[in-house]
C-alpha cells in the first residue's frame, strides 16, 4: 500500500455541500505537507474511477465525505440517483487493511465492521452524523461559525492521520475538540443555538466509533 490518500467529495445537496467545502481544508493541509492525494469530485466521482484508483494507486488512507447507511457509502448523484461506492457483501473487501474515515452516517455499524480486513482501521458513526447550519452563511459555509463547531472536529480526524498520529489518537483528538466546543458554548452568553449545538455535538460524540486496528498509522 502507498502513502497517499483518496478523498470523495460529492456536492449535490445542502449536507454534501458543506462537507465538500470543509473537506477542502484537509486537502489544503495535504498540499501544505506535500502528501499525494486523489480528490474525487464531480464529474470524476464515479464508482468506476473510485475502484480504479484504489486498484492502481493503492492508497493506505480513504476519506469519505458522503451519505451512507449501515450497509452502504454513496458517491455522487448521477442521473438523479445516488451511486453506491461501497456496499457490504458486494465490494467491502476493497477497503480491507486500509485506514478509512467515513464522514457518513451509520457507517460505523455493520459496514465498518466488514471493511477492516486483518489490519485495517475504520472510523465512522453509529448515529446520523449531524450538524447545525446558519442559513445566513450557506453561500459561504467556511464562514459559518455554527457549522464549524461540528465539522472542524471531524476534519481533525483526517488532519491528525495525515500528521502520522495513530488512528486512536486521531479519534481522541476529535472527541476532545468536541468536548472543548461544548465547554466553549457554555461560557458564551449570547450564542444563539447553545443548547441545540450541545445536543448535536453530544450526538456526534456518542456516535463516533473506531473499529479494527487502533494503532494503524498513515505514515
Amino acid at each position, binding site marked *: 500500500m502507498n502513502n497517499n490518500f483518496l478523498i470523495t467529495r460529492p456536492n449535490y445537496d445542502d449536507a454534501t455541500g458543506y462537507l465538500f467545502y470543509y473537506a477542502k481544508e484537509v486537502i489544503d493541509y495535504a498540499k501544505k505537507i506535500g502528501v499525494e492525494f486523489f480528490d474525487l469530485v464531480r464529474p470524476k466521482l464515479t464508482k468506476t474511477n473510485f475502484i480504479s484508483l484504489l486498484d492502481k494507486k493503492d492508497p493506505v488512507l480513504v476519506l469519505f465525505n458522503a451519505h451512507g447507511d449501515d450497509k452502504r457509502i454513496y458517491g455522487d448523484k448521477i442521473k438523479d440517483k445516488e451511486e453506491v461506492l461501497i456496499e457490504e457483501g458486494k465490494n467491502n473487501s476493497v477497503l480491507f487493511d486500509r485506514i478509512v474515515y467515513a464522514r457518513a452516517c451509520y457507517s460505523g455499524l455493520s459496514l465498518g465492521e466488514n471493511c477492516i480486513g486483518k489490519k485495517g482501521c475504520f472510523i465512522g458513526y453509529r*448515529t446520523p452524523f*449531524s*450538524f447545525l*447550519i446558519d*442559513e445566513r452563511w450557506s453561500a459561504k459555509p467556511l464562514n459559518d461559525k455554527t457549522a464549524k463547531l461540528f465539522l472542524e472536529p471531524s476534519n481533525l480526524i483526517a488532519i491528525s492521520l495525515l500528521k502520522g498520529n495513530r488512528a486512536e489518537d486521531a479519534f481522541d483528538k476529535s472527541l476532545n475538540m468536541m468536548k472543548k466546543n461544548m465547554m466553549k458554548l457554555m461560557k458564551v452568553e449570547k450564542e444563539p*443555538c447553545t*443548547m*441545540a449545538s450541545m445536543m448535536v455535538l*453530544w450526538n456526534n460524540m456518542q456516535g463516533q466509533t473506531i473499529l479494527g486496528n487502533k494503532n494503524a498509522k498513515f505514515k
Partner: protein
Amino acid sequence: MKEENKLDKDIKKLVLYRLDATIPLHFKLSIGNKGVFTKEELKGHIEKEDEIGRIFVDMQLEFIKASSSGKISEILAK
C-alpha cells in the same frame, strides 16, 4: 400506525417545546442522509412521528438523559 408505537404525548410536547426554545429561525439541522431541516419542518416531522421526527426525538432524549444522569458533566470534566 399502531397505538403502542406512538410517541408518549408528554415527551412529544417536551421535544416540541425544546425545539422551539433552542433553535432560532435562521438555523437548519442536517441529519445524516435524511436531509437538512428548518425548525418548522422538524416540527412537522415530530407531529407526524415519522422517521425523521423520531430521530430528532431520540437525539433530544439522549441529550436530556445524559445531562440529568451526570454523564455529560463526567465526560466534560475528564
